[in-house]
């Protein structure tokens, strides 16, 4: 008696066809890429002028040097002009693997890929980028680690100097005073004034630690000037 669950066997001289396993089409991968624009890989770079109060501490405000032909003098596959240009301006270019493992992550973008810092979290079908700044694996820890590298290391970031700190303090002081004076008319200014006050405290503490005019480190060497003996009579004469 034949088994109704089995297909009939081929009979006669024909060879039985086993057929091929047919699988229903799998659902298309519907995972949507993040709604972010593609952007090229980059190197972080630091300049002695660029500092910010990040997470309550004075930390370097890094720039990003995109590795894209046509930008900053770079041509196809040759970025040396861009590197030279940036170094001439005083930037320190920070290698990808400075802390082991690259600090650049490649994400699917709306078209192509977006190369973002490893501390940026992106989400499918969303344009929102969430920074991961705090904690031992956060961006701030990376900045601190760069500052903690030995001075002989090519990526060491020396502490902020007076020429960078004084303009910062001026800016924050002005912003804080303007915000504080506007609180009576606009209560929203209170939190803004408090924020600037806190940042100003950090910068002023750094200035005080330098003695308001201590030794200047790094590439920019403080000029003490030459001693000049003024001969007023000769000048008048």
């Amino acid at each position, binding site marked *: 008696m034949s088994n109704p669950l089995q297909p009939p066997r081929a009979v006669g001289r024909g060879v039985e066809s086993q057929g091929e396993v047919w699988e229903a089409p799998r659902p298309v991968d519907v995972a949507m890429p993040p709604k972010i624009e593609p952007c090229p890989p980059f190197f972080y770079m630091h300049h002695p002028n660029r500092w910010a109060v990040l997470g309550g501490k004075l930390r370097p405000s890094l720039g990003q040097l*995109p590795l894209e032909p046509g930008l900053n003098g770079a041509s196809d596959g040759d970025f040396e002009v861009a590197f030279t240009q940036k170094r001439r301006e005083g930037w320190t270019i920070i290698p990808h693997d400075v802390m082991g493992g690259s600090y650049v992550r490649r994400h699917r973008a709306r078209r192509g890929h977006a190369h973002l810092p490893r501390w940026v979290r992106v989400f499918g079908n969303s344009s929102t980028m969430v920074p991961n700044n705090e904690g031992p694996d956060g961006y701030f820890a990376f900045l601190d680690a760069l500052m903690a590298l030995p001075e002989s290391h090519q990526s060491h970031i020396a502490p902020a100097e007076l020429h960078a700190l004084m303009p910062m303090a001026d800016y924050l002081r002005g912003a804080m005073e303007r915000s504080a004076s506007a609180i009576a008319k606009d209560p929203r200014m209170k939190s803004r004034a408090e924020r600037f006050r806190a940042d100003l405290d950090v910068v002023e503490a750094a200035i005080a630690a330098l003695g308001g005019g201590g030794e200047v480190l790094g590439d920019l060497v403080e000029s003490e000037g030459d001693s000049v003996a003024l001969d007023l009579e000769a000048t008048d004469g």
Partner: protein
Amino acid sequence: MANEIWYSNSGDLVLSETLNQEFLLALADRGYPLNHPALYYVGDLQGKGSLTLKTSEIGWMGYDILADVANEDTVATQTALTDSSHTVTVARKAMERNVGQALLIAGAPLNFSDPATWAADAAGAAAGKLVDMLANVADDFTNQTGPGSGADLNEIDLVTTAVALQVANVQGRLMCLLHPQQWGDVQIDVTGSAGGAFQYSQDAQRAMLLSDGSYKATLHGLIDVYSSSRVPTANSGADRAGAMFGRGGILWGDASINVDPDARAIYLGIPSDDEGNVTGGAKVMVEMDRNPHKAWKVAVYNAYLGATKGIDAAGRTIISDA
């Protein structure tokens, strides 16, 4: 009672959906603030013998002033010439689109047989890429201003930045390229603030108006504000890094593409004389082809573009909350 002819039971008479021959544009940044005088165009590199152009920056015409001399027979001080240079290299930027034969047969709201369809797409793609490149070099001025990481930008920050540029002897109109979030924070600040002279100025009234397009407002008679979503992030995505700069702060260039009689192409931006004769190359080329094996139409857009930061002191990066 079962013989009514309804739309819902007439699947053989009507279509479940039909196609509007008009269409909506998907949202994208289509602002191209490329004509501001602060953007220094180094020129067209076609036929220059190189795709790299160096522009000198020279301390001339008042950079050095006359020195005092002690006596009338004192030898004048020999003064060195201060000079520097900025290099723009143009590189190929390209995109390919493939349109299957079946879609061409079926028809679509886009008329793929019309050169204007391709020209419009290619022009937007090339201009958007150039803005993207400009925004990417605008964030690395070595001087920066702004309220700092996580804080909203406001009008005072922009004025402070403009003052700092003027202190540095930057002349002429200032271009301020901000992310829409940064400019939105300025607008909210202006709208909600009370007191101060600025709130009663015409600039403030204009700044409060929500406007589309990339041009947003002119503040204090000198700061032309543009916004672009292509302004990059800073501080690992927490902030945006816009910029304000004067002429010479950012340089850009391009290279026209030669008209090739062997190519089946659409050329954009070709200069011509009064008689309509072509006098130069194209800023953007759309080269058309067909892939017979896959039965699709191929269109490749090409442009040659370059941008670099110029005089560092002529600009400032503006970092504020994203």
